[in-house]
């Protein structure tokens, strides 16, 4: 009798009951995202890859990605990747699709991208070209700052441009764009471009088992009501204005090294006859301005702070263009939330989404409340997780996965990036009952299996760290 019970219990603990999702966070060795999801329900299964990239494009970065993608290919054997998702155009999410393009050949069924990458969407095309324009301008700005030895005081420009991996000669962000281009040809089936509110079927799994919700990137509804959409009109006013500002900033930098004879500067901001070079300015005003006792009030560099603001704006803009997906395991209602790098603006738009297949009273926050796996946005920087949403995550099985690497030079340098952000990190630990996983360490501090505060024992599956094949694995019971 006891043996019978024992075998029964053993069977129960080994055999997955019903639907499970195994999530593997690959260790790309620096800041980057690469997540493989394996949905299994008896005979049915689906393999999903969400992003594959790392921050840099050095030989070692490439080799690492090749190893990871090679492993994925091997694990699949003769199966396919049912779905590959490219969330947004940053190097650390897409470089793998460029450096390992060969390895991905023939093994991808379906690719999902956001509506912003849809060549047939006019709004998307305009936004994309404005964005590329801004990136190009930022690169010119960066070069000028360098040549005038001013970049030291304005690190943001160079740092942000790192996400785009600009080609030296053409000033065009090569890798991310190429990554998207590759993705568009990789799938056996045509690419699907997704918008918020849509609920596409997960390839390989029936919608009765798994539902997918698209939360972002937001389509700014007010833009759709523009009176007279002319050919030259921009759909994102702020982006266009940023482009103009960058342009003006560049011509201002020109003013510094040559007495600009550019036509743009002749009337901007005043007719040239009013401008007085510092050597010819009014003596009394100069006396006040150059008074050494008042030197703390001069404004010689404030105008350049704008360069940093523009860079951060560009970064936020691209991050907010992230494709955000929520996978709902229907029977239990549990949700896996993959928010890419979406920042505040993207998150705030989720509340008002109207879902194509749900009743009118269905609220997006119903999904948030049932999150059991949260892929923390943007390597846990402070503005990529909305406090209100984090507080709303109430499920007792909540686990967080942070794709952060504390050894990344952008974090370790002086005035480096705050990832993971202190308060957010603390709150994640509290909300998950100390069940936080990190790409670099595996278990986050205080969250290990033997740590006092951890609560992994409440969950049916424990995380697995595979050092050889470079991943951290956690399985969700559906």
């Amino acid at each position, binding site marked *: 009798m006891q043996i019978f019970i024992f075998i029964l219990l053993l069977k129960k603990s080994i055999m997955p009951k019903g639907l499970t999702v195994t999530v593997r966070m690959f260790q790309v060795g620096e800041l980057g995202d690469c997540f493989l999801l394996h949905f299994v329900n008896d005979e049915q299964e689906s393999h999903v890859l969400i992003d594959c990239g790392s921050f840099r494009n050095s030989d070692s970065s490439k080799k690492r990605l090749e190893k990871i993608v090679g492993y994925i290919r091997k694990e699949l054997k003769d199966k396919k990747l049912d779905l590959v998702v490219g969330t947004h155009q940053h190097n650390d999410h897409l470089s793998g699709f460029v450096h390992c393009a060969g390895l991905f050949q023939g093994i991808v069924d379906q690719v999902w991208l956001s509506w912003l990458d849809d060549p047939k969407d006019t709004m998307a095309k305009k936004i994309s070209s404005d964005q590329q324009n801004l990136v190009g301008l930022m690169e010119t700005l960066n070069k000028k700052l360098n040549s005038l030895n001013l970049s030291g005081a304005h690190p943001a420009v160079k740092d942000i441009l790192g996400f785009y991996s600009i080609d030296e000669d053409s000033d065009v962000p090569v890798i991310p764009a190429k990554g998207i281009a590759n993705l568009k040809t990789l799938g056996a089936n045509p690419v699907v471009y997704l918008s918020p509110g849509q609920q596409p079927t997960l390839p390989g799994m029936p919608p009765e088992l798994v539902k997918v919700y698209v939360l972002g990137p937001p389509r700014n509804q007010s833009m759709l009501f523009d009176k007279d959409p002319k050919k030259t009109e921009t759909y994102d006013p702020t982006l266009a204005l940023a482009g103009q500002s960058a342009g003006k900033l560049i011509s201002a930098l020109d*003013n510094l090294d040559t007495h600009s004879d550019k036509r743009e*500067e002749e009337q901007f901001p*005043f007719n040239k006859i*009013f401008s007085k070079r510092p050597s010819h300015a009014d003596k009394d005003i100069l006396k006040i301005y150059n008074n050494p006792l008042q030197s703390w009030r001069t404004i010689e560099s404030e105008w350049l702070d704008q360069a940093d603001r523009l860079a951060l704006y560009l970064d936020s803009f691209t991050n907010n263009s992230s494709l955000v997906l929520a996978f709902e395991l229907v029977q239990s209602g549990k949700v896996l939330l993959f928010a890419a790098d979406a920042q505040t603006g993207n998150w705030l738009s989720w509340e008002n989404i109207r879902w194509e297949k749900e009743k009118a009273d269905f609220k997006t926050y119903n999904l948030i409340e049932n999150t059991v796996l949260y892929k923390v946005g943007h390597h846990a920087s*402070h503005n990529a997780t909305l406090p209100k949403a984090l507080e709303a995550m109430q499920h007792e099985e909540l686990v967080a996965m942070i794709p952060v690497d504390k050894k990344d030079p952008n974090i370790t340098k002086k005035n480096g990036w705050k990832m993971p952000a202190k308060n957010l990190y603390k709150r994640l630990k509290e909300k998950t009952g100390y069940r936080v996983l990190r790409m670099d360490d595996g278990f986050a501090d205080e969250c290990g299996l033997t740590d006092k505060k951890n609560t992994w024992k409440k969950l049916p599956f424990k995380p697995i760290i595979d050092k050889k094949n470079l991943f951290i694995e956690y399985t969700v019971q559906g």
Partner: protein
Amino acid sequence: MPVPPGRYLRGYTLDPGFSTRLDTMGINEITYQIRWEENLLKGPCGAYFEVIDVDPASNCFYDPVDLNDIEVLATNGLSPSEGNPKFHQQFVYLAAMRTLDHFEKSLGRKIIWSRRKVVKITGPKKRKQVTYHYVDKLRLYPHAFRDANAYYTTDKKAVLFGYFEAAKKVQGSNLPGGVIFSCLSPDIVAHEVTHAILDSIHPRFTENTNPDVAAFHEAFADIVALLQRFTIPSLVESQISATRGNLEEFSFLGELATQFGNALQNSRGALRGAIGKVGPDNIWRKYTPDPQLYQSVFEPHERGAILVATIFDGFLRLYNVQTADLIRIATNGTGVLQPGAIHPDLVHRLAATACDIAERLLHICIRALDYCPPLDINFGDYLRALITADVDVSPKDVNGYRIALIEAFRSWGIFPDRVNTLSIESLCWDKPNQRNPELNANEKKILKYVAQFLKGKVGEILDLSTLEANNREQIYNASQKLQAQLHDLLVSKYRAFFSPEAWSGFLKKIGLTDEVVKFTYNGEKFQSEGPPPIEVYKVRPVYRVSREDILVEQVLITLTQTFSIRGGTLDGAKFRGGSTLILNISKDYDVEYIIYKNILSDHRFKYQMDYQQGVNPAFIALNDSLYEDGSGFGAINFANLHFHSVT
């Protein structure tokens, strides 16, 4: 030769763009009157402001205007012109002085800019040495940088105005690709100078300790800019004529910085609409008071907009009530005005009423600042300050200003803490003899002792304050001296007269303590190294005349205390307590009000830490940078707050 009664200078009433439209050109340029400053130098550089026209992005300067040039004086200043930098300098000076005038009149004292803090690390032990310095003039840089922005920086005690290229698309009446100067917008200048003045009165209002603080700074600056608009009779008349006396309809008066807003490639109208906005379907609608908003909206501009809408709501109520009789007369009791244009006499009377209300309301709003606690301000506190300040100065409340404000706050859902009814008596701050728990006999004695101490010493400042001459630096120095003396009294010299226990109890009643401060937060204990240092920030006499012609003479004192947390999970946080004391000179220095925030309050500590740590869902990080921690421990940076993410 007697000093001229004023200096007359021409300028814009709305943004410059309105000068090139037929329907508004007649009202967009008027001659303002500001005070005559003796010895106004080129720049212009006066006693309070110095305009320095350097344009670093263009690597040049622009020649300064001399407002005392005979040709300039003869024509009431230079002719308004967007293309002439000298006019920009004139206008920035003019708009700044106008705002200053409103404040000095309402506050009953000369404005002294907030002190400059200098931190030096000295010696082998790397000790921090902090010194404070007087700042005589606020710097105004009309063409400081190339961006759609303008901001006040307390580090440089300066306001920087940006300029930018207008959208390429035709929008409003902007020249596509033309230049928009933020220094030419009367709203933007008033708004920024208000930040600077508010900073001089309550420097702790830049500390992000609750969702209302950042919002308050923005809202208050907008309120001043908006109400100032309504004090221009010709402008108000034209708009009343256009809206047939119904101020609730769309009028330019309710928008701020129209040209600026139009230029941002966004055809949604002005930057911030106080009474309504253009919706996604391009139709303008007035905001309806929605009490839910205060509970759910936390982004500083949006939250601030609620306060602006509330004050404006009060204004509209007063206007409707006070013009009801005029409408009755004009319509013979039917209440329905004839179709078409309304009679110019009626326009004139309605406008005069509107202007009068606006000016009084502006003064009430400004005066209320003296009745605010010195830190951790919230909208409910401000309502109580408004009511108390007004009761003090106009006990009878002719015309119902207070009731209008209370109604407005109620309809927008803003309620102060721990007040059981919205009656005037409940809303007024308690006087010491009304408090619960009451001050005991000893504490009352101590209060009287402190008051008499001040009476003896404040004489020098009183004398200086009554002189017209520019002696602000002397007032500052005398105040600093007195503050030091009061500080010594509070911290040590009391011992000659009172027992430590009695003194301890007294300090608690004014929100301070002489004991070690202890809190437990989330199970973790925090404790100060000793009693936190007390700072006497301000001692100033004040003379005001109310709308009921009562002269009010008071002494204002601001006391704060700071618990700087070291170590543990809250390392780097600062928790403060303190109070504003108001003494009535004509009642023998009786302490009339103690408006305090208790440094020993567990409830306030928890709330602030939850908020700054991002636990409170209301917390929205004030910047999006990945270099930032996202904690609320830093001070509010106006440049970042203003950087437009207009969506």
